């Protein structure tokens, strides 16, 4: 069968009578699905599905979870608000407001440091860019849940302490 006005190769597929009826292929397909069904019914334990909240996948040590801000020995924030992370961030999710630190040897610190966890793509570039090892993604937390968008914007205090589980 061919049609005028159609590009070459379109509409001129010929089907044998056997193919056109789809019949044997349908039976074969049904056979395959039934094979899976029976196998899974007989060996329910071997199914790859994980029962998530009870069972959890073990992630690598290098897994990038929710961010945290590291602290100096005195517990203050290591971050010097250089904004390398917010510059490199492809999702534009980090907002930093810098301020003058009373200690001239530190000079600059973040007055506010917020991350919008909904915008974050967990690429880890902020970690890479940080010259002070101030931001890390080594918490291993990935179950992040909240009941409003606002709660996903986490602030400096939250990131410094970071002692909650996934619930914000």
């Amino acid at each position: 069968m061919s049609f005028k006005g159609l590009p070459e190769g379109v509409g001129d597929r010929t089907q044998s009578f056997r193919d056109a009826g789809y019949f044997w292929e349908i039976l074969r397909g049904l056979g395959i699905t039934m094979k899976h069904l029976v196998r899974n019914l007989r060996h329910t334990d071997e199914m790859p599905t994980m029962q998530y909240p009870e069972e959890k996948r073990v992630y690598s040590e290098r897994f990038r979870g929710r961010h945290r801000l590291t602290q100096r020995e005195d517990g203050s924030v290591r971050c010097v608000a250089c904004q390398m992370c917010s510059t490199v961030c492809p999702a534009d999710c980090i907002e930093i407001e810098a301020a003058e630190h009373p200690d001239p040897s530190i000079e600059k610190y973040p007055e506010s440091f917020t991350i919008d966890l909904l915008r974050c793509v967990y690429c880890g570039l902020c970690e890479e860019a940080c010259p002070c090892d101030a931001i890390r993604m080594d918490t291993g937390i990935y179950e992040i849940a909240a009941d409003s968008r606002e709660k996903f914007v986490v602030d400096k205090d939250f990131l410094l302490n970071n002692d909650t589980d996934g619930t914000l």
Partner: protein
Amino acid sequence: MVKLTIDSQQIEVPDGTRLFDACAQVRGEALPHFCYHPDLSIAGVCRLCQVEIEGMPKLTIARNTIVRDEMVVFTRNDRVKRAVQQVLELHLINHPVDCPICDQAGECGLQDQYMEYGLYESAVGVADKVNKRKVEVIGPQVILDQERCVLCTRCVRFCNEVTKTGELGIFYRGDRAEIGTPPGVELANNYSLNTVDICPVGALTSRDFRFQKRVWMLHGTASVCPGCATGCNVRIDHEGDRIYRLKPRFNPEVNGRWMCDRGRLEYKAVHDEKRLSEPLIRRSGGLEAITWQQMWRELTGLLKPGGVSLALTNPHQSLEELVLFRRLALQLAGESQVFGSIAGTEIGEADDLLLAADRTPNRRALSWLELPEIESADLVARSADAHRQRILIYGGDPAADDTVAAALRNCAQLVYFGTHRNATAELATLVVPLSMWAEKDGLFVNGQGRIQRFARAVARPRHAREDWRLLADLLAHLTGEQKLVSLTEVRRFAAAELALAGSLDLSTLPATGLVPDATEQAPAGGER
């Protein structure tokens, strides 16, 4: 003319040319440098612009050398490169590695040179560096960081040669040498922030801009400073809808490479808390927000031909607005009732550098349009018996003057177009929000009679429309004439009103602005 060879390329330059400039011509970019600045004298202290000249045993700095005939110069060979690297290493011996917290990062000469000539393996460890004083406040606008200074002396020369105030100097010698002010002296002249601009590193930083934003996040928009009649060319550095700083933009005809500290803070008014963002109407004693549509109804109800007893604008508005305002006001009020400004306001003291006595950007346009000044006593007198009549004020804040305020309080209806919720707005019957200079496109005519363009950098207030469009709409509504629908049309209209030469296109001005030919400029609209 002198013929010489630079990097095996023949070049001919005028007599007395500095080798530095000849090299720049050949290379397409300047030689590495810190101490050289085109508007300052030659110091030759940074030793970065070294080149090899055939026949001379040692390398020479190009800035101090005057070209000779048949000179053969190399700027890119290994010897030169090695020398520059070593000089840069010396510059960096005590330079702190605090780029992350340095405001200069991103526009830093040291960073730029280091990318090309860096050794990347410093012989001096971070712990061995000589620590000097950081965060030293040396003036109302400037902070000094001694560690970062490379002693190029640009700032010292600026204070000696440009402002001639000489606050800064080099103290001590050798590796203890540092920039500073003599005891009891502050870097407090009105041009101190230019030292921040010319500082190639982060030693001098602006207190106003300090830690506000990393410079690479800023976008620059070419504009004109609205602070005085000089009309310094500026670059508005903004991110999103927030302005972070103003920087001078080179215009040899107006401001060169400088601008004053006062002008640099002009942007603050744009982000003032008292900015008007929506139309207001007076109801039961207070001002209430209304929609633009409601405001338009009220406005067209209040502004009827001949129904306005006094119309006043001010020299802060753009040329386009003033042209449209004049046309509009002549429709609404009699010829003797339209005024450009209140006499004697916004006049300060001029200095002999850039700051003009007239602290408004566009007073020249008022005189071109023959919008007269009104004495404030006259204004008071006129308003006093205007309690059955309407006053239209476009821009400015005349009620800042108490006697004017008292007079305006008497008038029946005051229609105020303004940018801030100021004293005048508090007296108004109807308040229409206007954009400020950084929020719109327009033209200013500076004290020289130079027409200069300023461009929109940030968004105007949420509920305001373009100012020229509002005026054009009102004008079309009143006269029934065809509406002017683009700024190009408005500018064409303005050129006609000003009776500028027919060929003068206000939409395409040269970068340095334009002074209309005196013979072609027959001041003020013909059909008045």
